[in-house]
């Protein structure tokens, strides 16, 4: 007896006015003659569509608005990904909108001294003064002929990002739009790109899977399709085998059939051993991989195989992979490294093989964001190739196309200075010998965000003088935070577009209060889950409570006007001339119109009806705004078979794509591939460079001095490090296994606790080679002796009165994992290292 919203939604009007509800009522509960009381009712309100940006699931959402107040949230009723439901983060967001510590007015710093714990002595100023100051500083570097000294640092974005992140710096004359992407992921994309030509997160067909192997993530808490995964998990447990590889006992591990607590950093050993067992037992998926000519399995442990004996179908290089890497990678060999019993490894591989091709190997950052993790990502993802599950029913998928337009070309609006200087090398060192950052196969194709701090400190490749940051907080969210604190001290001028006085804001000269995405902003995002790709609008469901502007579009518009007043008119002209309303041809006259027209331009193919783009039929702009989103047609299985965007168009076990990329990178830097690998910290030499393979984990700190390997994991309530100032975040932190309300803990196995003389509840100093933090001990059987785990989210020393224990005195609530972890990389992908046990720590009672 489900009564309620589902029926209501079917019957109800889209903007369902007052909530005296239609739909069937439970007869037993309807008013009886005896019940004299009037029916209860909601005050007038309306469900308005927008999108949640609490994590990168980017859920289509709806907000119930009463009297211009956002009062509750749910998923968008039309979404084929969340079906109208959100995860806890979605509900939590109301406290971000209504946060007492939100900045309501632009501020300027009056204390010239900058440093951690130094009060900036912010005072309120007008928007005019704030923008004049920023424009003056920008013009200073332009007039000095060095526009490249202006940098935009990007944190969380919508797809309106191109205005502030690309058009603003490029037309101004700087190459430096620098994104946060590499501190968040990238290494896992490396795995799918250099096997199947897909530089992106995968989708997963949970409904049809028979074996779900979750590796290094917890899809019930994070990883880009949370409500969809939560909805399906209970049924998957009945229909499929669920195995979780994770050094930490996660919610998925708690619920699944098997938990394989791999030794941190040894994921690659497990992956190649599973591949070895699958091959030795003849369990590869013949329809996808092919077979031996005479049908006899020649994969015998330790023995090389003649390449000509095997005929591949949709794959490339299987026998080479076997000969170079897999033939000796037995279960026993892997058991010694991973500390997972050989029998368990074997059983897992056999069960996966039996379930092929309906197998998901769900690769997450925990198994990829290691120093040297790119190859681990390849090895894990390659299992989807062996089992023929890539792009197959019940397997990992790519995305259906989302038909949106790029922003209008700006080449004609660059003056000579901009043309020349916007092509200078970026400040993150991407594409240099040490940092291949091979996003989409291109040397320097991806960002190496964390290297920016080091480069700023030594003025490499040139000095940076003006930074505009938006929705970023890198001296909290990037590893090696102390480097960022020092680097930011040295920058002559920083403007920060933000909602809160974050850690980054403490180094700013000017603060510009921005709108809260989800509730006050206009934009769009693209997302996918459950075989559907989606374009979903972010809409201002409530009016801003004070003069806050949209970071990605309104502020650049206003800055362009200010630059024009100072003689640099090009950006202003570009925004006015090239962003006309596609319906009326009107020219934008202010930032809001500019925002709306750009949004219409970008999403036109979805709503203008000119071309059949498949999926939901949207009847014009108004209809799009009202529905708030568009679903694609379901992704077609096997649509990439034979058409993978690799060099061979096959699923590559020997990556010709990586041969090309690495060779190009080496040639660009006038050296050899082997030298690139040496400089970039990898162990592979020769042909090993081009295959998924095992590399020994790299670790900062000796086992003698730092005996415990640190495991970083994310709170399921993190709205990307921005929700810690919400009391509900603090109250419900206990939903992260092992954690407690309003507190911060390091999870320690009881055996280690007694070994190092600490007890439950003790305050301890946790020390790595770069820093110490303070937190409390929680005894926890969900980590292996020799490892400790800590949830990321706490440790704010700024941001607000809830996030910090004492904002005024910069006292953090708990410790920040990013302070403890050194800055290091998987250099091939540019990804920051966070996992793989690369941080050795010691704990001492305080």
């Amino acid at each position, binding site marked *: 007896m489900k009564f309620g919203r589902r029926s209501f939604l079917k019957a109800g009007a889209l903007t369902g006015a007052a909530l005296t509800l239609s739909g069937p009522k439970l007869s037993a509960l309807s008013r009886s003659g005896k019940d004299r009381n009037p029916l209860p009712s909601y005050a007038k309100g309306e469900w308005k569509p927008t999108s949640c940006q609490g994590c990168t699931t980017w859920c289509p959402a709806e907000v119930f608005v009463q009297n211009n107040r956002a009062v509750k949230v749910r998923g968008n009723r039309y979404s084929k990904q969340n079906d109208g439901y959100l995860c806890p983060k979605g509900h939590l967001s109301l406290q971000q909108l209504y946060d007492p510590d939100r900045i309501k007015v632009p501020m300027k710093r009056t204390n010239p001294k900058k440093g951690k714990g130094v009060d900036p002595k912010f005072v309120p100023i007008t928007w005019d003064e704030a923008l004049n100051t920023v424009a003056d500083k920008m013009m200073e570097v332009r007039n000095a002929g060095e526009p490249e000294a202006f940098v935009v640092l990007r944190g969380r974005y919508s797809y309106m990002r191109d205005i502030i992140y690309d058009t603003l710096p490029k037309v101004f004359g700087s190459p430096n739009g620098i994104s946060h992407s590499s501190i968040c992921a990238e290494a896992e994309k490396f795995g799918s790109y250099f096997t199947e030509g897909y530089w992106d997160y995968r989708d997963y067909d949970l409904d049809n899977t028979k074996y779900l192997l979750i590796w290094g993530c917890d899809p019930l808490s994070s990883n880009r399709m949370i409500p969809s995964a939560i909805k399906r998990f209970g049924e998957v447990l009945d229909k499929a085998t669920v195995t979780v590889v994770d050094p930490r006992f996660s919610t998925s591990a708690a619920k699944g059939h098997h938990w394989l607590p791999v030794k941190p950093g040894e994921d690659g050993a497990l992956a190649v051993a599973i591949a070895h067992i699958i091959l030795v037992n003849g369990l590869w998926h013949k329809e996808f991989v092919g077979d031996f000519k005479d049908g006899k399995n020649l994969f015998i442990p330790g023995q090389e195989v003649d390449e000509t004996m095997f005929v591949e179908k949709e794959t490339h290089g299987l026998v080479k992979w076997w000969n170079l890497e897999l033939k000796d990678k037995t279960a026993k060999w892997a058991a010694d490294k991973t500390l997972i019993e050989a029998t368990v490894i074997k059983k897992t591989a056999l069960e996966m093989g039996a379930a092929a091709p309906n197998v998901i190997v769900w690769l997450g950052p925990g198994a990829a964001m290691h120093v040297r993790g790119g190859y681990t990502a390849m090895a894990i993802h390659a299992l989807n190739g062996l089992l023929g599950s890539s792009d197959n029913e019940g397997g990992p998928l790519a995305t259906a196309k989302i038909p949106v337009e790029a922003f209008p070309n700006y080449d004609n609006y660059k003056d000579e200075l901009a043309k020349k200087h916007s092509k200078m090398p970026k400040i993150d060192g991407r594409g240099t010998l040490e940092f291949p950052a091979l996003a989409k196969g291109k040397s320097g194709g991806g960002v190496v965000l964390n290297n920016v701090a080091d480069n700023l400190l030594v003025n490499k490749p040139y000095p940076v003088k003006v930074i505009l940051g938006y929705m970023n907080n890198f001296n909290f969210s990037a590893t090696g935070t102390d480097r960022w604190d020092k680097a930011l001290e040295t920058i002559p001028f920083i403007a920060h577009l933000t909602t809160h006085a974050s850690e980054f804001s403490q180094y700013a000269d000017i603060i510009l209060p921005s709108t809260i995405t989800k509730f006050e902003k206009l934009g769009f995002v693209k997302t996918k889950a459950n075989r559907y790709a989606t374009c979903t609008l972010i809409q201002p469901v409530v009016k801003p409570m004070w003069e806050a502007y949209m970071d990605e579009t309104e502020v650049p518009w206003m800055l362009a006007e200010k630059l024009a007043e100072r003689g640099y008119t090009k950006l202003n002209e570009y925004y006015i001339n090239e962003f006309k309303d596609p319906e009326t041809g009107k020219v934008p006259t202010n930032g809001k119109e500019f925002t709306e027209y750009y949004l219409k331009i970008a999403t036109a193919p979805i709503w203008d009806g000119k071309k059949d783009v498949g999926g939901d039929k949207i009847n014009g702009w108004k209809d799009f705004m009202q529905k708030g989103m568009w679903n694609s047609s379901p992704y077609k299985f096997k649509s990439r078979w034979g058409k993978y965007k690799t060099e061979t168009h096959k699923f590559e076990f020997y990556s010709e794509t990586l041969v090309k990329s690495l060779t190009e990178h080496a040639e660009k830097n006038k050296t050899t591939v082997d030298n690139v690998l040496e400089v970039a910290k990898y162990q592979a030499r020769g042909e090993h460079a081009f295959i998924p393979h095992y590399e020994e984990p790299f670790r900062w700190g000796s086992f003698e001095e730092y005996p415990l390997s640190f495991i970083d994991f994310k709170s399921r*309530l993190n709205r990307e490090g921005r929700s810690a100032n919400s009391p509900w975040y603090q109250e419900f932190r206990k939903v992260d296994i092992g954690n407690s309300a309003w507190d911060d803990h390091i999870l320690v196995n009881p055996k280690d606790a007694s070994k190092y003389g600490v007890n439950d509840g003790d305050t301890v100093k946790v020390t790595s080679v770069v820093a110490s933090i303070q937190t409390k001990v929680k005894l926890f059987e969900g980590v292996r002796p020799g490892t400790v785990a800590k949830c990321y989210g706490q440790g704010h020393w700024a941001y607000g009165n809830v996030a910090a224990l004492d904002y005024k005195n910069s006292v953090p609530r708990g410790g920040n994992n990013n302070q403890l972890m050194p800055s290091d990389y998987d250099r091939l992908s540019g990804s920051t290292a966070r996992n793989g046990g690369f941080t050795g720590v010691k704990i001492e009672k305080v």
Partner: protein
Amino acid sequence: MPRLGMIIDLQKCVGCGACAIACKTENNTDLRHDGQTFNWADFQFSMEGEFPNVKYTALPVLCNHCTDAACVAVCPVKDKAMFKTEDGITMHNDERCIGCRRCQKACPYSVNNIDEGNAQYSVISFNSKKSVPHEFFENKEELIAGCTISGAGLAKISGSNPPHKTDYKHTDYDPVRRKGVIEKCIFCAHRVKNGEDPYCVVSCPSRARVVGDLDDPNSEISMLLKKYESFVLKPEAGTKPNVHYIRSFQKRS
């Protein structure tokens, strides 16, 4: 007469907290203070075993809307402030409540002070006579003087405390409770009466919660109870709770 109840399917539940936070947005419950949680929906977590053989269960909890509710029995008000509705909801009337807290003492699932002892949750919370409801939004202190808004500033601009208050009318309870009264889950009677499921139910992304008439053998909830083994919390207290749990949070044997 119907007997309204709920089952929570623990195999579906992932312990994410969406129900608990959504309840706070629907029912405008206060932040934790003075030993009271004000979490009408909450959790009881348990973990046992030794590495690597550990078992974990997240148990979502709420008022059990007991058939023989101890809280109702002890309510000293003549026309009881805590009473059973004809639908089986354990209802609380804010106006008649005298704040004696006998219900909180009598309820097997409640404690007077969450900061003392080992209880992980309390179904009933008390708004003390001294407390200010949603004090968080009464606070005038600005983090950065003249630059940040403050709690009181938000309440003023939005015209509401809390600013995210879901505004509804019900004859027995207010959307925000006054000081000096107890409060607890009222099964979202303001929704149920209008044919909508409680907000925790429609907010659960795993669809773990099913509500319905336990006295109707053909209701979905009765069918599920027939199909699966189930349990209730503290059956020994004899209050006949109407929130039932089916299946297991974890699959590992």
